[in-house]
């Protein structure tokens, strides 16, 4: 439903639910309806709360109009990753209706079920496997078959559903359409967890490279982003952020802007400052002119010593896995390999700065927001405004691509606070500096790796210890202080409590890939890892970050995998074994092994130990590197071969070719998946080669595209080839974060192959490449 449609409904004084209620109910009785497993509706690791839209009821997910149009309601939104198209395919497939007849409403808290946050590569597992949207469509299809059976007087097993109608097998003249059967009324049924899903081999709409339903409107400028939302009487706001991290407001001289044309209000709430004006440029000018006095915050740890700083802070410690024999195994190893890896803070740096529109009046609020977390944002806004969540409606409208948490949540709060202050709708779009200086960055990491190898050259023990910086994060339902606006307005971020590590218990989880793919992952008697190494210790230390952090695409998985896959390559080089063969030797996961083999085959892998023999010591050198990961252990299997050229005189790395093989179970849309792989591979390349948040002793200094380095269209774009390992017989897994997770290691390993120089710190700037080359050439 478009915003216009929402407005039209609202103008009529009707919500969708009211509409359905007044349309009367269609009572259908079944002899047996399986009891609903309410616990089974939980959203994996992503917590959701009960809302007024009951996810156990079919009508919460689907409505069939008299003309046969299907409206589906989802709590997972399209951020540019193609979920709008893929979920539309899903409903069309399971319900046997043409794609064009399905309208998907994404993340409007007035009408959509609460599915928490669109994140963590969980949208496909959540809505495509045995739960939720897919199960709703399957339930509806079975219900329609039963209704048709009564209507036509033919047993269900002699009926076939296709193209939005049900016909009698062998008698084409006897049919009834869904529209005729339901006619806009409620289905009034619980979701049936036993409703039969269509097997992948019978798919006609899923599994096909269906073009994006939004592509033409995006290419012609007709697509409505949240930036384009216009509400009658809408004003424009701009925020005034502190000049430095932790600064607090002393005084605001409102007279400095009161005379400016269009200025309507200066809004102050503790340390939150903003202005509201009639026109956007007036708001921007007023925010720049506003005289505010701030008291500086505490000094920030120097960037040059940040990794050492992380090791000396109070920490919250956790074992992911801990066999008791690590030290003893190390003591008896034939040789030991050690290395330390560093990964910087990086940012989402969205293409467009974040924007939201809020309309707060009479104790009610409507927020048009690009948030990935519609229901949690509803709760956060309610806390900021001191109203109940039910008094807030969040309507998702796509913003510029988001890869975790950009400024989408915080700008939704900004708009709410400013609209609340003036009692009129307010649109806020952040400046580039405000977006980049205050977002929730990807975690900075420093990682120590140690492994023992036996006389036969096999790894017998793996010891990992990491320190990483964290503060704030997703606000969830009750912590608006986890993002900058909430903090400025007086809410605290989630408390940080140092703790010692407890021994691991329960089922093995790989801790955001803190555990490498090569360990057995044994807790008590069960081994849950993707590898064979039985002596294993994985210990993490979370420390308080000076900056806000949050889930940036492949959070922690990317940093950990960089360290694991480079280190594995170092061990393979130490024992002089081909890195692909060495991986296959230490993996137990057949699916990951198949991905490694497929990538190597597609890349025509040159099997031999690294580094390359007879490589030049100066000038141009070329090489190939491999990396792989079982994403979160079980949520996608991927391998990559990178081919690079290194100019050893300038230190410049050029990626020539990236070959990716990925197994994410049954593929909903092969072209969409290739698009994700290609984008993930190149975004990963940009992050590996140049992206790093920078700061001085007071403030962040990477605040635009000159100071934060994103590879433009005009860089030497490598060939990206993708091999999709399509498996019909397993559950679907995520695919949005797999490729990006393994790029830095593949590039670093290829640089080592080409030059013999090892890169252990991201990004691989020319200076760092040159230092690694100098270290290679140093005597001893």
């Amino acid at each position: 439903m478009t915003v216009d449609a929402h407005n039209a409904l609202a103008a009529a004084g009707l919500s969708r639910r009211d509409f359905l209620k007044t349309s009367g109910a269609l009572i259908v009785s079944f002899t047996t309806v399986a009891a609903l497993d309410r616990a089974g509706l939980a959203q994996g690791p992503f917590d959701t709360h009960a809302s007024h839209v009951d996810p156990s009821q079919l009508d919460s997910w689907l409505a069939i109009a008299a003309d046969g149009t299907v409206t589906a309601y989802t709590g997972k939104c399209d951020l540019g990753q193609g979920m709008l198209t893929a979920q539309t395919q899903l409903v069309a497939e399971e319900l046997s209706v043409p794609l064009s007849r399905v309208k998907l409403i994404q993340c409007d808290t007035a009408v959509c079920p609460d599915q928490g946050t669109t994140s963590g590569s969980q949208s496909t597992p959540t809505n495509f496997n045995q739960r939720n949207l897919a199960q709703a469509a399957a339930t509806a299809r079975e219900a329609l078959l039963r209704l048709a059976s009564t209507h036509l007087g033919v047993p269900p097993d002699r009926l076939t559903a296709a193209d939005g109608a049900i016909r009698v097998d062998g008698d084409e003249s006897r049919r009834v359409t869904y529209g005729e059967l339901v006619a806009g009324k409620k289905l009034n049924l619980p979701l049936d967890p036993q409703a039969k899903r269509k097997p992948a081999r019978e798919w006609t709409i899923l599994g096909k490279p269906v073009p994006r339903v939004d592509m033409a409107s995006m290419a012609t400028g007709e697509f409505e982003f949240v930036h384009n939302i216009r509400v009658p009487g809408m004003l424009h706001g701009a925020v005034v952020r502190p000049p430095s991290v932790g600064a607090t407001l002393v005084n605001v001289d409102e007279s400095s802007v009161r005379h400016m044309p269009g200025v309507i209000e200066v809004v102050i709430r503790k340390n939150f400052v903003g202005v509201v004006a009639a026109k956007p440029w007036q708001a921007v000018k007023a925010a720049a002119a506003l005289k505010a006095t701030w008291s500086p915050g505490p000094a920030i740890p120097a960037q040059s010593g940040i990794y050492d700083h992380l090791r000396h802070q109070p920490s919250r410690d956790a074992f992911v896995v801990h066999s008791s024999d690590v030290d003893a195994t190390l003591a008896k190893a034939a040789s030991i390999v050690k290395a330390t890896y560093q990964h910087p803070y990086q940012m989402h740096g969205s293409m467009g700065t974040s924007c939201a529109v809020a309309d707060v009046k009479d104790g009610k609020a409507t927020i048009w927001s690009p948030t990935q977390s519609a229901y949690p944002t509803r709760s956060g806004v309610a806390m900021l405004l001191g109203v109940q969540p039910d008094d807030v409606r969040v309507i998702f409208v796509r913003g510029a691509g988001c890869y975790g948490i950009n400024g989408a949540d915080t700008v939704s709060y900004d708009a709410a606070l400013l609209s609340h202050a003036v009692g009129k709708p307010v649109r806020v779009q952040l400046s580039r500096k405000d977006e980049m200086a205050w977002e929730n960055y990807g975690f900075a990491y420093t990682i120590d790796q140690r492994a023992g190898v036996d006389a036969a050259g096999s790894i017998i023990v793996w010891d990992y210890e990491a320190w990483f910086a964290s503060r704030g994060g997703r606000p969830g339902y009750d912590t608006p202080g986890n993002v900058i606006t909430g903090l400025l307005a007086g809410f605290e971020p989630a408390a940080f409590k140092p703790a010692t590590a407890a021994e691991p218990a329960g089922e093995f989880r790989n801790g955001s890939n803190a555990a490498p793919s090569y360990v057995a992952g044994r807790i008590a008697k069960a081994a849950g890892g993707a590898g064979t190494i039985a002596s294993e210790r994985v210990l993490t230390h979370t420390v308080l970050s000076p900056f806000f952090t949050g889930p940036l695409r492949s959070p922690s998985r990317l940093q950990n995998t960089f360290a694991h896959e480079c280190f594995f390559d170092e061990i393979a080089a130490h024992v002089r074994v081909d890195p692909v063969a060495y991986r296959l030797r230490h993996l137990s996961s057949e699916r990951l092994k198949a991905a490694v083999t497929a990538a190597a085959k597609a890349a025509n892998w040159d099997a031999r130990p690294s580094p390359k023999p007879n490589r030049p010591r100066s000038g141009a050198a070329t090489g190939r590197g491999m990396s792989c990961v079982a994403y979160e252990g079980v949520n996608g299997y991927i391998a990559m071969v990178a081919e690079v050229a290194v100019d050893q005189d300038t230190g410049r790395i050029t990626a020539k070719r990236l070959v990716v093989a990925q197994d994410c179970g049954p593929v909903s849309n092969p072209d969409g998946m290739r698009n994700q792989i290609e984008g993930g591979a190149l975004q990963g390349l940009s992050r590996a080669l140049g992206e790093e948040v920078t700061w001085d002793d007071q403030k962040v200094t990477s605040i635009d595209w000159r100071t934060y380095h994103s590879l433009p269209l005009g860089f030497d774009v490598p060939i990206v080839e993708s091999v999709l390992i399509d498996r019909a017989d397993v559950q679907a897994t995520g695919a949005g974060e797999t490729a990006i997770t393994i790029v830095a290691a593949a590039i670093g390993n290829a640089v080592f192959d080409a030059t013999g120089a090892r890169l252990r710190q991201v990004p691989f700037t020319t200076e760092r490449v040159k230092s690694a080359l100098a270290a290679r050439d140093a005597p001893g």
Partner: protein
Amino acid sequence: MSITLTVNGRSHTIDVDPSTPLLYVLSDDLALRGPKFGCGLGQCGACTVLARGRAIRSCVTPVSAMSGADITTLEGLGTVERPHPIQQAFIDEQAAQCGFCLNGIILTAKAFLDQQPNASEAEIQRALSGVLCRCFAHTRMLRAINRYAGHPVPSRAGDAGSATGDGEPASLWTGGVK
């Protein structure tokens, strides 16, 4: 101050602060969706419009400098029903993810190819050294532009296309010396 602009063939007279960047007038006063605020600094390309035969960055162009100019935005090229051939090439290649950058990419490429219709792939790539896509749909976008320019592109079912640049673009970091 009253300023008259011709946008996508229609004349508009607006009463506006003359220092207002053109982008604000287009997206707020004229409610156009094509040009977008990306950085406000002329660094990313999201705000690009065509004027006087060139691609200009409307976020750093005062509206007063455009009085009387004939401006074309992404909407002015074509529609969903009748897309311009370069828009069709992007649709055919499925060359976007979030789509926010498309305006800048398409218009920058079109303006360049209008001036240099026989440009090589390397020249096209250099011309795009000042535009960003943060979803990194680069391979598809370059394929779409090369297809529009008449260069052979590999079939979309298989591998992504490759392109090489032989010079150092001046405008943005491209992985080189820093």
